[in-house]
Every structure is written in structure tokens, then in C-alpha cells.
């Protein structure tokens, strides 16, 4: 078996027969603070190149950094959610290396004094729980973006020229590093994926990151090595970069295990290197050799003062942590009555928050699940957008379901309502009215208007219900105004009295 790049791969089961995998994940989490790590520039995604820059994030001579307090707070909250210790005193450090996307030619990061350290999380895969130890959470700044133009590889070598966008330079990043994870056996790729999913859900629940992997808010470097069975000597590891989806975490780990397994089995030696993951082909290619460790000449950043989070502050932050993801899942599953499979479907497409919000807006859980995992998920895929950007909000889904429940639209018409909502024609009620979508008859629009009038004037409605038919005049007037006079007043009166009978 070979991959697109020509590597010979070992059958996965055979890898498992002969080796124990050891994995480690380094995940960069881009925070969603409004301003950058050291300056007031906006962090908004997608602005014109270099429009969100200033002397500080361009590293102009003489400029100095000032730390973003919210970024420090976010780092501590992430650390606490991962059961880490929070340093009583820590510093930033400069990591020195030359690269055009680094305005200062050093990255301000943390070295031997991370803000959070020694944590752990428990990850469940198919009923089995694996403990993932967290080595550290540290703060640093993102680099700019290079766009290589011309050449065949899209990389700096061979390009005709390169363009630089420093909008991302100085955006706060948190790096979450696990200790080596052993004992996961054949489930190593799934554990990697589940951990990544856990991290994504956690930073989303904390509200500290947009956590959109396709926008690079979460970027994973996956380390893996194989130990021959029966030994406990760590093998040479590779570090796979560009692992930017949950599927990729699993795929990249699996691929590297098969690639390394074949090399080791045929007497070869693993090169210590970084490898690039190619999501479309599902394979890795060699990147930078790491056999000669680069010397980053770290030293404490003299332009910044140490950070000493008070214990009181840390405890305040701990007290306001959101419900841990696992606990929340259990609670929601019970409340919603979903099977493991149903809950899994919702989580797989990242719709947990959406379903939760839809239910909160008054929709039955099963119906909310159906809309998000079915019709809306399909449309998001077609439009290649995130589910939450599909153009229909949880509140709108809830009111759409109400229309269905009330028999005003059927499923087929409901899809047309969705068309209208996505097209920006208004709320589901408005779309039904303007498109004249109704199951039964022309009465639908009238009924909607009648319901609205009743809701707007409950006093009058109550009187009518009590038999004071004269009070119906006010309601009929309201309906006629809403229908802009196109309705037959006698028909309105008949339907209204039926409604309030």
C-alpha cells in the first residue's frame, strides 16, 4: 500500500500488533479578544491586508508592547478549565529567529515560566476513559501571513515573489501542550481527535476563542512516535503540522503510524522532522528537518514586566468557569432524551450550542436536532459555510417549528420558508405571509394576522372569550390594518370568533 507521495504504508492492524503509539498534541488557540496582544489594533478576521496594523504590531523601531489584560485572563481561564496550576509569577520571553512574517524577528512568547502548567483532562472514546496530562498553557503572539505568488509549490522557495499581511501579527495565541500520551493503543488517533474536540468545546464554552478550525483559530501540531511492543524506549517522533480539522487530527495520526510502522519494520530509521498534512489527499510530506535543534536564544522579554496573578483573582476566575463540557453533555442528553448516537450526530457537526439555543427558544429537542442535523446541515455544506452561519438563527428555527406544529406549513413548505429566511426576507412568519406559503388556504395569512392581533391585545381577546363579542371590534380593526385592507371583514370576524371560541 502506498500513498500519493509514494510512502509505503503498513496495514493499521499490523502496526497495532507490533507497536505502541505515543502521541502528543500542541494546540495553538487564537483568542477572540477585540484587540491584539500588545496594541489596540483590531483582530477582526478578513479585513483588507495590513489595514489592522500600527507601529507596535509592525515592530517599527522604538515601538513597545503593552500586555492585553483580557488575554492574560483568558489564558488563566483556559488553564483552570484544564485543571492546571496557575503561576504566581511568570514572565514573557523572546524567541529569536528570522522570518519575514515576524515583524520583530523575535516572537514574544513564554519559555520556562508558562502562565499555567501541570493540568489534566479525561477524554472518553467509545466508553473508555483516557487521561491526557497537560504540560503547559502559555501566551504568545501570532505572526503575519505570507502569500507566495508564482512557483509550483506555494512555498517560499521557488515563488516569484511573496506578499505579507501583518493583520494577524500580534493576535493573542495560547499554546496548549500535552505531555506524551501513552497507552491509547489502536485508539490513539481517536483519542487525539476527541481531545481536540474537547479543547474546541472548552474554549468555545469559555467564550475565549471563536474556535473555528477552518479559520485557523485552532491549529494543531501532532507529535507521534512508535515504541516496539514490549519495550518502553521512546521512538523518534515526527511533528505533523497543518492539522486543521478534527478529521485531520485522526487522519494524520493514523497515517503517520502506518508510515512510521512500515519504515521501522523494514529496518529503517525515523527522521526527526516536521511533516505537512495534506487534508485532500490524506497524507503527510516532509517539512523542516529537526535533527539539528534550532537555537532560539530565549531570554526574558525586557520590554514587559512580569505577570503575577493574585490568588484572589485566580479564585474569582475559577468560580466563574462554565460547566465542564462532559458534565454539560450529560445534563443535556438527559434533558433532551437523546440516544448516544443522536447526541453524537449533533456534536459531530458542532451543533450542540445551536440545538441548545433552539430548545431554549421553545422548540422540542427532537425537532431542533432534526432541523440542525438535517436540512440546515445540508445547506451549510452546500454553501460551504459553518452551520452557525447558514443564515437561520436558533430563534428562527424554533418559530419555524411552531408553524409546522400549528399546521400552517408542512415540511415541504417549511423548506421554502427556510429559503426565504436565508434570502433575507424576514422571520419565518414574515416569509409565510409574503410568499403566501400556507398548507390550507388563503385563511393562513388571516389566521397569522389574527393570532398576532390576539397576542398584541390579550385584554380584548379575554373579553371576547368571556362572551363580550363587542370587544372583537378592536381586534378586527387590528387585523384589517395588518392585512392592509385586503381582507374580508366578515371572514375575519368569523375566523376570529372561531379562534376565541
Amino acid at each position, binding site marked *: 500500500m502506498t500513498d500519493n507521495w509514494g510512502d509505503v504504508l503498513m496495514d493499521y492492524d499490523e502496526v497495532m500488533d507490533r507497536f505502541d503509539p505515543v502521541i502528543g498534541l500542541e494546540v495553538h488557540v487564537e483568542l477572540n479578544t477585540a484587540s491584539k496582544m500588545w496594541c489596540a489594533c483590531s483582530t477582526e478576521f478578513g479585513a483588507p491586508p495590513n489595514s489592522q496594523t500600527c507601529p507596535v504590531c509592525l515592530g517599527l*523601531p522604538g515601538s513597545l508592547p503593552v500586555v492585553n489584560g483580557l488575554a492574560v485572563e483568558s489564558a488563566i481561564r483556559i488553564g483552570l478549565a484544564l485543571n492546571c496550576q496557575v503561576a504566581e509569577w511568570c514572565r514573557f520571553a523572546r524567541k529569536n529567529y*528570522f522570518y519575514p512574517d515576524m515583524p520583530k524577528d*523575535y516572537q514574544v512568547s513564554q519559555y520556562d515560566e508558562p502562565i499555567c502548567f501541570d493540568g489534566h483532562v479525561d477524554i472518553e472514546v467509545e466508553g473508555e476513559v483516557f487521561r491526557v496530562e497537560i504540560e503547559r498553557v502559555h501566551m504568545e503572539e501570532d505572526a503575519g501571513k505570507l502569500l507566495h505568488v508564482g512557483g509550483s509549490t506555494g512555498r517560499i522557495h521557488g515563488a516569484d515573489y511573496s506578499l505579507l499581511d501583518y493583520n494577524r501579527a500580534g493576535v493573542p495565541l495560547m499554546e496548549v501542550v500535552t505531555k506524551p500520551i501513552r497507552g491509547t493503543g489502536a485508539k490513539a488517533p481517536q483519542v487525539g481527535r476527541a481531545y481536540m474536540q474537547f479543547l474546541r468545546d472548552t474554549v468555545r464554552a469559555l467564550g475565549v476563542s471563536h474556535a473555528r478550525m477552518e479559520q485557523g483559530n485552532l491549529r494543531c501540531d501532532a507529535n507521534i512516535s512508535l515504541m516496539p511492543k514490549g519495550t518502553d524506549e521512546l521512538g523518534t517522533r515526527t511533528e505533523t503540522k497543518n492539522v486543521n480539522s478534527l478529521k485531520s487530527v485522526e487522519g494524520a495520526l493514523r497515517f503517520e503510524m502506518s508510515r512510521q510502522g512500515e519504515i521501522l519494520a523494514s529496518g529503517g530509521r525515523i527522521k526527526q522532522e516536521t511533516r505537512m498534512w495534506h487534508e485532500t489527499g490524506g497524507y503527510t510530506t516532509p517539512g523542516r528537518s529537526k535533527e539539528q535543534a534550532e537555537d532560539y536564544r530565549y531570554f526574558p522579554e525586557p520590554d514587559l*514586566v512580569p505577570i503575577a496573578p493574585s490568588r484572589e483573582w485566580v479564585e474569582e476566575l475559577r468560580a466563574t468557569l462554565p460547566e465542564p463540557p462532559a458534565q454539560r453533555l450529560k445534563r443535556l442528553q438527559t434533558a433532551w432524551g437523546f440516544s448516544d448516537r443522536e447526541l453524537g450526530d449533533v456534536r459531530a457537526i458542532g451543533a450542540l450550542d445551536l440545538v441548545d439555543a433552539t430548545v431554549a427558544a421553545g422548540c422540542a429537542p427532537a425537532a431542533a436536532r432534526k432541523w440542525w442535523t438535517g436540512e440546515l446541515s445540508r445547506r451549510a455544506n452546500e454553501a460551504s459555510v459553518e452551520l452557525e452561519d447558514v443564515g437561520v438563527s436558533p430563534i428562527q428555527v424554533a418559530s419555524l417549528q411552531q408553524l409546522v406544529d400549528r399546521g400552517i406549513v408542512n415540511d415541504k413548505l417549511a423548506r421554502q420558508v427556510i429559503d426565504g429566511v436565508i434570502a433575507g426576507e424576514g422571520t419565518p412568519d414574515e416569509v409565510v405571509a409574503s410568499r403566501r406559503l400556507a398548507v390550507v388556504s388563503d385563511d393562513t395569512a388571516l389566521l397569522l394576522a389574527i393570532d398576532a392581533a390576539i397576542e398584541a391585545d390579550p385584554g380584548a381577546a379575554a373579553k371576547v372569550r368571556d362572551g363580550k363579542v363587542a370587544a372583537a371590534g378592536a381586534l378586527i380593526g387590528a387585523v384589517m390594518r395588518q392585512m392592509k385592507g385586503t381582507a374580508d371583514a366578515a371572514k375575519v370576524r368569523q375566523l376570529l370568533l372561531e379562534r376565541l371560541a
Partner: protein
Amino acid sequence: MASGILQSSAADLASLIASGDLSSVEVTQAHLDQIAAVDGDVHAFLAVDTDRALAAAARVDAKRASGETLSPLAGVPIAVKDLFCYEGLPTTAGSHILEGWVPPYNSTVVNRLLANDLVILGKTNLDEFAMGSSTETSYWGPTHNPWDLTRIPGGSGGGSSASLAAFEAPLAVGTDTGGSIRQPASVTGTVGVKPTYGGTSRYGVIAMASSLDQPGPCARSVLDAALLHQVMGGYDPMDSTSIHAPLPDVVGAARSGDVAGMRIGVVKELGGEGYAPGVEQRFGEAVELLTSLGAEVVEVSCPHFVHALATYYLIMPAEVSSNLARYDAMRYGLRVGDDGERSTEEVMNLTRGAGFGEEVKRRIILGTYALSSGYYDAYYGSAQKVRTLISRDFQAAFEQCDVLVSPSTPTTAFRLGERVDDPLAMYKADLCTIPSNLAGNASGSFPCGLAPEDGLPVGFQVMAPPMADDRVYRVGAALERALESRWGGPMLAQAPRLANSLVVSA
């Protein structure tokens, strides 16, 4: 009138402008004329900003005419070391690599000068990236000492101090990393103060060594320096190392000059072998003078000061190697070898090779080595420990004394070219000044006479604890008052007259 203007103190000029006896335009024009007359010989300025200076002066005059209250130094011209970013004027740091770079923003110090209506005349020469004690490493050629044009004006801020001594400007701002304000002040017979680290903002000042750099005032009198200190200093939220506390009352101290009852410590380690006899003589006389004014003088020992130079030459280059990495031809400044064929790395290499001078390269290499894996603990790590010991020496000494004193530099101005090929000899010019940078305390240099052997200025250094900058001024003012009454006028009146100078002797 012009001659009177040039010799006036900044304080006097400000009050004459405020009273309407002089216009800021007259004052500014007089200094621009003097620059035109003498700077061909002195070479204190790298750029003169004639139009903006005159426009700013005219605005001050208009403000006065409309009855607006003026700030204490409004309308007074000032020279700015070419390390401070000032929008619209090239800022080169004395380096080829920044040739033609015009900053798109102002340093905090420049903003404060402008906000207080000082009139910026232009940018002054310095050693490349402030690395040197003679201005000879400037890519743009050396500045000459107005006392003797064949001699160095000190460094790195030789341009600022020479501009004062040549009466081209009544005030100047400098930066001091290891003595770059105080040593030039010493050898040009002017006043220079390095404030407490964190007392003035570094924002917009091209960095040499971040944990040591500190902007400060340069002037011809103690009061002028204090007035400028007051304008430029104080908390700045743009500089994380800025101290969030009110400035000490430096102006009050400079006006008082009362040293009666002050305890003054003479640092034993800063004297003796290697110190010129005339320097030691004038320093000794100044100490006696302070005693006669009621100060109590004791000798103190700061045993770790002997390691200060070595410590400095590990910490400073380490920070330099990182701070100067950004000059890589990618975003601004010089770009060499970009022929469309060469790689990014090759262009970076060629640019840095051509753009940096020998002294800058020497320090980048030293610093890169000191931070390297396997050497960090032995060099950078050990240096930080010794730095702590030096700070403790200061703390112990300040338990016994209010201030410490020493010569500002071991010798008078040496000849241009004399030490330029002998780095170690050059570095020794900062022997006395470096400890205050390592410890972050306040320190200033004040004229204390001419060395009998060569007739050149000698500087007297006063060191005070952090945030006790006022004590530096108090002692400086006492000395100035007593010496000027002995000399019958300022020491600079004894300086030889420059050819073409518009200064007329009284």
C-alpha cells in the same frame, strides 16, 4: 541681540518669550543661524528642521499674543538625539541601515516636547544605535568637541552635548544606556541626567538595550535640565516599564541647591588607577566644596562595581542582538541585493552586512553568543546575578548615604581616532556611569572644572536611589552655584570661541 540669546539659559529664554521681550521666532532663528555658522565644524546635527521649527515658534508667539498661558519652556528651541522617532523627519539612529527611514509616529518624549510647545530644531548625531563613547561609530561621521575640534564630544549622545556646548541649542534630549548622556555632558562641560529607569518613557526611542536605555535631559544649567526633565518625564501607559508614580520634584530641588546635612558617599571603587590626575583633582575639590556647604562626606565601598563593565558587556549585547534583529530589509530601511534571484535570507544577510558598522556587529555577535544554548547560564545568567549584586551594593550604600558621587568618566575628552580601534579602551570611558544603568537608579553629570593638564572639562557624577532624582539635582545645583561664583560665570564661558560663531563674549 543674537549673542545674548545664544548664551541665555532655557529658563531665561522662556520667561523672556512669555513676557514678550523676545519672540520665539527670534530665538529659534538665532539658533538656526548659529547652526548654519558653526555646524560645518562641529557636526552636531544630522537633520535641521528649519521650516517646522519656525512655524512652531510662530505658533507659540501667536498663543502668547492671544493671551494663552504658556507652558514653562514654551518657545524654547531644543535638539533631539536621532534615536527618537519624530514624524516627518528621518530617524537614522546613526546607522546606514535606517538611511532614509521616516517614522510614521512620534516617540512619547517628542510628543511631550511638542505638547509643551518646545521648538524642535532637528536631530543630533550619535554613535550608531547609540553604541559608543565618542560618536565615531556614526555612519554619518563624528561630531567634534566644541572645546577642541580634534577631540571627541563623548558618546553616544555627542551630538546633543556638542550642540549645547556650541550654543546651537539651549536644550537637548538624549538617551543613556551605559553613560550616553552623562559621559558626553562630562567631556563637553554641560549637564546631563539619566533619570531613574522607568522615569521617562522609552516609547518611540530606538532600542539599544531595553533594560538599560533611559531618555533624559541635556542642558547647560542644572535648572534647565530639571525643567526639561519635568516636561519629558512621568508615567506613560505605552511603556510597560514606565513607573506609575509622580515624578520627584526635580525643579524644586534644582532651585534649592541646599545640601546642608546631606550625607554624600564617595565610591572608593570609582577612582585611582586609570583616572587622569586632573580629573581626580577637580573631583576632590568639588567634594571639598560640598563639605564646605554643609554636606557630610564619607567614603563607601561598592565591591561589585569592579564587575560592572563585564556585566554590562554581556547583558547589553544580548539585548542588542535581539533588538536589532528587526533590521532585516523586509519592511523599511536599507535593502541590499534584492535582484529577484536572491533568496530572502541572502537579502537579509547582505543588507545586515552592509547596513551595520563594525561596533554594532561586534555587539550583535557577542550577544548572540551570550544567549546561545549551552552558554546562556555561564554568560547571560551569571551577568544577571552580578547585576543583582551591584544593585545590592547600591542599596547598602544608600542606607549610609543620600547620594553617591564619583568622577563622571575617568579622563577628559580624548582625541578623535585615539580609541576607535581599541574597543576595550573605548568601553572604559563608561566605567563610572554603567553601575547606575545596571541598577536603574538616577544619576547625573555636572561640570566641576577644567583639568589643569589639558584645560578640558571634568564631570562630577551624582547618583541617587531610584525615584530620588531630585537629590541628583539638589547636589548638582549646589555645586553649580558655588563653582560659578568662584569662576565668575558658567564654565562654558571659558571655552574657546568657535570660528564663525555668532556668540559674542560679554
